[in-house]
């Protein structure tokens, strides 16, 4: 049992660097931490879930098959086809994988006892953003042909004298800001969410320790933690959705024929 007296109050970035799990390392060794374990568990859970639910697909779906089909159907119809158009069906499998992976990774942030999302380390969102970045450029280059794609992406239909201003802006927003903002958005949401829960949980202990007048209010702080966990649930789902929708929208932009 953790002693209330030695709970450090203002949580810091250090709280995200968890110690390594025993068999694989000692102190200050980050090769195998809770984060690593959660990543593998996430991947395993998603693979097992879809394998089990799709092992014997029936015409009249069972309950599990129905859940898997509604997840895929949601991403396929409401994200891929809605954003990209009929061609979006090709991208539905990747988008579904992306959606499930981010959702599951984010959900660890609010699962009791676990309560940290691997996505609160920028490495994970950064890799996902790089995949989306490479994918939309590749798809665009394949669809239009290399030079034509960059011409199409960088030169908007505008009078010639405004182009020196527009081309750098288009380059900046399409090729620099997009991957960066994708990664930072997901990372910062999960980071801030974890921080928020830490502030209210540890704040409760801090008030308990402060003096007799503050002590009862620690209960308020912990009730706030529970309320914020529900808010986090909303943010978790929203961020998984937003990441997928934005990836779909970038692919759509790359595939668009004319402005």
């Amino acid at each position: 049992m953790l002693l209330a007296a030695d709970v450090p109050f203002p949580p810091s970035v250090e709280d995200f660097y968890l110690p390594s799990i025993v068999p694989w390392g000692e102190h200050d060794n980050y090769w195998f931490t809770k984060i690593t374990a959660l990543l593998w568990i996430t991947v395993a859970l998603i693979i097992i879930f879809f394998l089990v639910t799709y092992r014997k697909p029936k015409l009249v779906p069972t309950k599990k098959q129905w859940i898997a089909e509604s997840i895929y159907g949601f991403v396929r119809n409401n994200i891929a086809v809605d954003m990209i158009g009929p061609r979006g069906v090709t991208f539905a499998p990747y988008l579904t994988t992306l959606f499930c992976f981010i959702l599951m990774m984010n959900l660890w942030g609010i699962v009791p006892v676990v309560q940290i999302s691997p996505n609160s380390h920028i490495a994970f969102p950064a890799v996902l953003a790089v995949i989306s970045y490479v994918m939309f450029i590749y798809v665009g280059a394949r669809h239009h042909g290399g030079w034509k794609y960059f011409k199409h992406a960088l030169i908007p239909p505008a009078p010639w004298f405004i182009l020196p201003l527009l081309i750098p802006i288009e380059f900046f927003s399409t090729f620099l800001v997009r991957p960066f903002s994708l990664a930072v958005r997901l990372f910062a949401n999960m980071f801030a969410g974890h921080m928020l829960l830490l502030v209210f949980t540890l704040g409760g202990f801090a008030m308990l320790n402060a003096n007799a007048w503050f002590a009862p209010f620690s209960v308020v702080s912990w009730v706030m933690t529970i309320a914020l966990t529900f808010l986090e649930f909303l943010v978790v789902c929203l961020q998984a959705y937003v990441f997928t929708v934005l990836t779909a929208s970038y692919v759509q932009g790359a595939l668009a024929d004319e402005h």
Partner: protein
Amino acid sequence: MLAEVAGSTAAIGYGLAAIGPGIGVGLVFSAYIQSTARQPESSRLTLPYVWIGFAVIEALALLGIAFGFIWAA
């Protein structure tokens, strides 16, 4: 006599940085509610754009959080 104030100015900075995105996100949803009230059948059509707009604006506030920690002094 002056009271001593300790802590990071990043906290104040983040408060200021959140004003803009706050207004922006408010505008996005106000526009969505208005358009849906005027034309209820357009609500599904505009929803993806609401989330894209929201996400792009919200990124500013989140950059504020991230940079607040990076440049905290």
